[in-house]
């Protein structure tokens, strides 16, 4: 167990590699109750969410979810988040645990001018269990009357799981099919145990933060604090597809529009090591003796069996196939820029 944003979190149960492989081939469950929840409700909730989110939440139907960014006026990330539209005038936003207090303060301040809307930090009202892997549906279906086949990716439904009131969302952070299950905290243990029991036939395993990190990296999902933060814009992070340009009211839009017109000078890319070695967060990308970029995430991935990572590099080095060098503890190791995602699940 390690301390993480005020929580005691399991890094691994049986081992990162075996947990990672279980999620790719069968199923795993993660206790991600540390994630923060902010709810925005009131007559002008949609206008309020459109102000603080860089996607266009107006496009969300009730029961639908959207990946988005909470941005500074400079178009950089205060956080990334998933927005769930619970009702026409009620949104649930899931944010990173370590940012919850900062996000809530920012959101509360920014929506004041909108009026007739309120934000509450309801993090303590939800436990969150993420079930992921190709066998997710067959593990969860026996525990709920909700017809899981009718929940499309990035949609959700309300119902019960193991007789506990639950919101079941087809969202996740591993690159696999799966469900994120919101339950009242006093029901979390019951649901966790029921999932373990139901998953026995497919050899479901509990998985920790370590596997969550290697899985999301293989799937090229950005990690706040590593790959994106208050110094990196949405466009630099290669997340332009997240921007809802039809939303003309979001904070940071002007800067992103200007950056889009002028073009970014650096970009987050995926790379594979050519030389032996593993690039880690914070290692420098070098051109001769000159640092030209920085590695934001890197590991040896269990499923692909390669040393991969993400790095910010100058735009002229960002094309797939470009050769870069990474300073691995004093040694310049060659790597190659590759398209992301590294891993895409078979459908």
């Amino acid at each position, binding site marked *: 167990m390690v301390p993480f944003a005020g929580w005691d979190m399991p*890094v*691994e149960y049986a*081992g*990162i*590699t075996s947990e*990672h492989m279980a999620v790719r081939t069968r199923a795993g469950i993660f206790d991600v109750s540390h994630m923060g929840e902010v709810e925005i409700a009131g007559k002008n909730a949609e206008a309020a969410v459109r102000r603080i989110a860089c996607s266009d939440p107006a496009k969300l139907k009730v029961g639908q979810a959207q990946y988005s960014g909470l941005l500074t006026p400079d178009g950089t990330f205060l956080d990334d988040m998933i927005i769930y539209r619970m009702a026409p005038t009620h949104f649930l936003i899931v944010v990173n645990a370590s940012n919850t207090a900062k996000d809530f303060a920012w959101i509360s301040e920014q929506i004041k001018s909108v009026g007739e809307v309120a934000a509450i930090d309801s993090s303590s009202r939800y436990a969150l269990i993420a079930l992921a892997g190709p066998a997710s549906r067959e593990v969860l279906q026996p525990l709920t009357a909700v017809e899981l086949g009718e929940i499309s990716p990035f949609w959700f439904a309300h119902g019960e799981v193991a007789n506990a009131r639950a919101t079941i969302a087809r969202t996740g952070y591993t690159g696999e099919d799966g469900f994120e299950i919101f339950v009242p905290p006093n029901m979390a243990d019951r649901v966790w145990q029921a999932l373990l029991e139901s998953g026995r036939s497919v050899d479901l395993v509990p998985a920790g933060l*370590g596997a969550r990190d*290697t899985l999301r990296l293989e799937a090229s999902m950005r990690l706040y604090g590593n790959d994106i933060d208050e110094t990196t814009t949405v466009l630099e992070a290669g997340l332009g597809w997240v921007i809802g340009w039809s939303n003309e009211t979001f904070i940071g839009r002007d800067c992103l529009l200007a950056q889009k017109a002028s073009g970014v000078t650096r970009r987050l890319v995926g790379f594979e090591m050519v030389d*032996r*070695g*593993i690039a*880690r967060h914070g290692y420098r990308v070098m051109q001769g003796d000159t640092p030209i970029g920085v590695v934001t995430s890197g*590991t*040896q991935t*269990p499923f692909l069996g390669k*040393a991969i990572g993400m790095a910010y590099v100058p735009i002229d080095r960002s094309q797939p196939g470009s050769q870069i060098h990474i300073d691995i*503890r004093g040694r310049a190791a060659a790597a190659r820029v590759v398209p992301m995602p590294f891993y895409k699940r078979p459908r």
Partner: protein
Amino acid sequence: MTYPDDRKYTKDHEWVRFSGDTAEVGITDFAQQQLGDVVYVELPDIGSRVTAGQSFGSIESVKAVSELFAPVNGEVTEVNDALKSQPEAVNKDPHATWMIKVRVSGDGAAADLFDSAQYQGMLG
């Protein structure tokens, strides 16, 4: 896991087994447990010198990288090349998986070495 009596241990969780003037060096079961799944072991070239208490290589698991510290002074005479393709051997059988063999030189001070009981006492 037991810590064999046929060798010595360091506070940095390496083990060293002497045979004449040669010493085999590996890491302990405790060390491999702390590291988790080992994916890469970087070792020195044959013929290079190692110095007690100083880094002779590195070991990487999925989650982290750690230095390997030499328990003795000397010259590297053999390197376990099998670890290039099978680094997981360190997890499976840490006390049977040597990393380097060193011809021990008499000069200079060795690192503090502990016997099995002392080492296990340090682990608590």
